């Protein structure tokens, strides 16, 4: 508990690259024994595993000893073998592919519409005056609120999923794009005027680069929301896809199938987020070199 509140030191240590810490140790005192030094270097990689491993062990023992009925909590081995089986038989890949298609398509539609809307609202205050209140009201009702209405209107086929997923992606993309463009500092625009930029130059050289970070943020949120929406829609109205696997397993009380599917859902969400973070580093790299 001694490290409570020692924020700045910790923050500095965190900011410095890991190999730097042994060197500082060598500076302040005698050389650390090799073992302790190795232990310290490995600590950040070992500690995170302690809790999950403990839980896993507890789970395993509980299942082994029959403390909990397998219908309520299947043993970790069961979940593991089910996962492997589902992957081997191709069932997982099929469902994953269907879900992925839905998300990508819905996200593509929603994010492009959101970008257009956001750029429109960001650039033209007049357009914003007309559109924003309706947009706000529309986004106030969550995806789940629209679901019953759309089910009545378009049935439970593909269109329903695409519409709801694109709605989920559209709102954050549009909002962040509009805000990002509005928040471009006035002085940048003034500098551009001094240079006599045309409107197109102003947009492509000043406004969009300056708003790139918030826009990208919106896209990231959009994808996360799209993935969330996909799972809900598939849970509620679908006969294939990852969400359906979860419902199906639940109905048959095959919790191992449920858990396997949940693990895949989590893994895909994680992968999507990481992927976008990587792209962000790429896309916005110039910002670091810029000044």
């Amino acid at each position, binding site marked *: 508990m001694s490290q409570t509140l020692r924020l700045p030191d910790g923050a500095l240590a965190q900011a410095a690259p890991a190999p730097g810490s042994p060197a500082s140790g060598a500076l302040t005192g005698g050389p650390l024994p090799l073992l302790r030094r190795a232990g310290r270097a490995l600590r950040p990689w070992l500690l995170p595993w302690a809790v999950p491993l403990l839980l896993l062990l507890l789970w395993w023992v509980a299942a082994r000893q029959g403390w909990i009925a397998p219908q309520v*909590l299947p043993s970790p081995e069961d979940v593991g073998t089910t996962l492997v089986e589902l992957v081997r038989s191709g069932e997982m890949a099929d469902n994953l592919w269907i879900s992925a298609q839905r998300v990508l398509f819905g996200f593509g539609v929603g994010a492009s519409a959101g970008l257009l809307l956001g750029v429109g609202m960001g650039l033209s205050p007049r357009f914003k005056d007309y559109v924003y209140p309706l947009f706000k009201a529309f986004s106030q009702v969550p995806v*789940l609120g629209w679901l019953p209405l759309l089910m009545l209107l378009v049935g439970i086929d593909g269109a329903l999923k695409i519409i709801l997923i694109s709605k989920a992606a559209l709102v954050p993309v549009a909002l962040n794009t509009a805000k990002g463009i509005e928040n471009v500092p006035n002085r940048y625009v003034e500098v551009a005027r001094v240079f006599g930029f045309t409107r197109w130059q102003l947009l492509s050289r000043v406004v969009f680069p300056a708003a790139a970070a918030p826009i990208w943020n919106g896209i990231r949120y959009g994808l996360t929301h799209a993935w969330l929406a996909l799972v809900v829609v598939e849970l509620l109205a679908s006969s294939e896809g990852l969400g359906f696997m*979860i419902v199906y397993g*639940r109905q048959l009380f095959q919790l191992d199938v449920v858990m396997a599917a949940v693990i895949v859902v989590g893994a895909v*969400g994680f992968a999507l987020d990481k992927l976008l973070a990587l792209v962000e580093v790429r896309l916005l790299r110039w910002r670091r070199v810029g000044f």
Partner: protein
Amino acid sequence: MSEPVSIAASPAAAPGRKPSFSLPAALRGWVLPLLLLLLWWLAVSLGWSKSPLLVPVSQVWHTAVEQTVSGELWRALRSSLWRDLLGFAIGASAGLIFGTVLGLSRLFESLLGPSFHTLKQISLFAWIPLLSVWFGLGDAAKVAFLSLAAFFPVVLNTFEGIRSVAPELIEVGRVFEFSRWQMLRRVVLPSALPSVFAGIHLGLIYAWLATLGAEYLLVSGQGIGNTLIDGREHFKMDLVLFGVIVVGLVGFALNWLASQLEHRLLAWRGRSVAQYE
């Protein structure tokens, strides 16, 4: 409110433009909704579609009045909101504690942080089938799910708020020889507060979203979500439309309440921070 960037109209071009007809800004927002309403009304009265789903505006109004007067709406709203707030309270307080500990202690962060970030990735609604096995289909499962929905954003934002306390502030605290408790109360928490509030705000919105989801997926009992499901099953478009409006209004009200509270409680910070530009 910062001045909007005038990208559209450069000052040089402005005087040359003819004064065309334009609505006052306050009225512009009404144009599109009224147009939509008009379109709807026209579609019904001119009989463009024979579908029973195309209900007249008046019928939605009728349903709204009926639901309100008969008390149906209040019963549904009461159970939904009660669950929402209970789940939110549990989830947000747990999230505050967990987020604070995670933010203050490096040890806890390395022990629990990665597990938390991994669990966070699981799409929220994927928890429902598991929770329904563990807690049944009743209120317990719903409340557990709602707390989970509020928990994640509160933890994340509390954690980030505490981590981004400026080192200079802590140094000043050291100079004053603050005790650990004083440091926490006078330095760390106040400067983390905006981020904490952002988390609570998000948590409130997520919890409302989750309330609906829980009522759809764990169909038992009362609630506004059940009203919507009922309407859909019986092909009552008027009821569904009314439900959608109520859901939107409640979301709006919760949002407004949270911003008001935030505004009040953060008033001491003054406006200088927001206007550094």
